[in-house]
């Protein structure tokens, strides 16, 4: 698709301990090996991309990190701590924020409530506070509302829809709300699963700008899965390539992009040109697939 772009390879921020360390992760579903012995590090302050063919195990990797799947073996370290056995909700509290490949917004709530929900793990009020709605619950809600309105909603330019029910939003806006909710989780690492799938070039550019800003202005580390190579190659500092659950390559975008294995398994020729014309000219033989 898009041509390699000459950008200076970014110097990854120098830091000794990785923010997130995946160490020998293996995950199998009734025979299907979704991940086998996957290891890589995510450096604080970086934008790291995980790419790979469909079914390579990228989403499964995210799910394992965020606790939805339990790995068969291997460890996940976050901020130096082994979180492999940590209950799912506590990981969110530690600062793992994420969005979902197949939009997982809560359709019965407004945009604002969806975003508020992201903060859940950081709030303290309990049922009794909630039932009486005095003191802590009241203060907390007010502070939350202020923070979300003034920082996140403004930042992502979604103030016009904040009272709309999410079910009435178009796909692109829903993706944006997903990102807002992930940001409300006050993450130290933001995991985005295909943030620009189904968006056209213009919308993709908007999203790319938000991702860059999240890193630059908020200092949040980003780990993303994405099939839009143009964006991945332009934004990321580090790219990990998975195939059949295994890491087949990792490194700077430029390195990965020229790796023949990656090209064969994932990128393809990158040269669609004028398919129709070629076909008519008989340039594409049967059975290339």
């Amino acid at each position, binding site marked *: 698709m898009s041509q390699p772009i000459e950008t200076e390879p970014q110097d990854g921020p120098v830091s000794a301990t990785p923010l997130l360390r995946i160490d020998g992760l293996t995950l199998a579903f009734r025979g299907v090996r979704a991940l086998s012995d996957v290891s890589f590090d995510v450096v604080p302050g970086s934008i790291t991309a995980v790419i790979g063919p*469909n*079914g390579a195990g990228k989403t499964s990797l995210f799910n394992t990190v965020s606790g939805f799947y339990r790995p068969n073996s291997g460890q996940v370290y976050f901020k130096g701590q082994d979180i492999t056995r940590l209950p799912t909700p506590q990981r969110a509290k530690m600062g793992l924020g994420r969005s979902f490949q197949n939009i997982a917004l809560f359709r019965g709530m407004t945009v604002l409530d969806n975003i508020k929900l992201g903060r859940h793990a950081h709030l303290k009020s309990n049922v009794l506070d909630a039932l009486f709605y005095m003191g802590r619950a009241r203060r907390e809600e007010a502070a939350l509302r202020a923070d979300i309105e003034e920082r996140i909603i403004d930042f992502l330019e979604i103030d016009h829809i904040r009272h709309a029910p999410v079910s009435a939003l178009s796909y692109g806006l829903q993706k944006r709300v997903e990102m807002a909710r992930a940001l409300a989780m006050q993450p130290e690492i933001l995991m985005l699963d295909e943030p620009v*799938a189904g968006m056209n*070039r213009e919308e993709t550019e908007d999203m790319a700008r938000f991702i860059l800003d999240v890193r630059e202005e908020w200092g949040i580390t980003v780990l993303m899965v994405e099939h839009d190579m143009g964006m991945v190659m332009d934004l990321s500092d580090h790219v990990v390539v998975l195939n059949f659950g295994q890491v087949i390559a990792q490194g700077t975008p430029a390195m990965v992009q020229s790796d023949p294995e990656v090209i064969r398994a*994932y990128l393809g020729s990158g040269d669609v040109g004028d398919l129709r014309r070629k076909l*008519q000219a008989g340039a*594409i033989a049967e059975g*290339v*697939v």
Partner: protein
Amino acid sequence: MTQPGTDHVLEVNNIEVIYNKVVQALRGLSLVVPRGQIVALLGSNGAGKSTTLKAISGLLALEDGELKSGSISFNGQSTARLAPQQLVRQGLSHVMEGRRIFEDLTVEENLVTASYALTGRGGVKPDFDLVYSYFPRLHERCKGLAGYLSGGEQQMLAIGRALLAQPQLILLDEPSLGLSPKLVEDIFTIIARINAERGVSMLLVEQNATLALAVAHSGYIMENGKIVIDGSAERLAGDPDVREFYLGVGGSGEARSFRDIKHYKRRKRWLS
């Protein structure tokens, strides 16, 4: 319209669609698909592309949508009185957004469901081998549950199902969604092949404009429920706005980097 006078397999005339009796999604949209051609339908999120396809295939009612006015004709015959399954049986297949395969059926059973489209076509037999020849991968997984296929395989299955119905026209809604670059290439190659080899017409909704314009003969661009530009694929690919907003080509004619995106944007000319 493109090439007036040619035989149009599909004509959509000035349609308006309303969801839930309040949300107006289409406002007087018209388009045609000439027989044997691929027509691309581009547009931003929420423009109403999927709605257009659903209006054509008659699936609107299932989502509380309603065709308020306008007309649609398939093979010169109005679709207004036809139930969705009748349309399919007459040769109009719709590959829906998000693949919509039957997750708890096997791959093979998914294809069997598609054979219902051949009902009433005088003994036309479903050709499973044809599908497997285009998608050998499906053959390997034919006994497995479709719910566990990877995204690309599911998309193949969705197109395979449509193919099995031996249609004259396929409505394709974002076939590249969530697929790896290589698979996207593969899928589009197959789309182009199916069109070229079997003469199936297609109406293709796609966000990846580069690819869509590479396979299509002609295209439409829609915004807010209306068509804003149309023309041959070559013409659209040359349009400066299309280049900027859909193809990501900067003013200099060079592909723009995502790192250099500005915080303000130029307005699209067709919006003014």
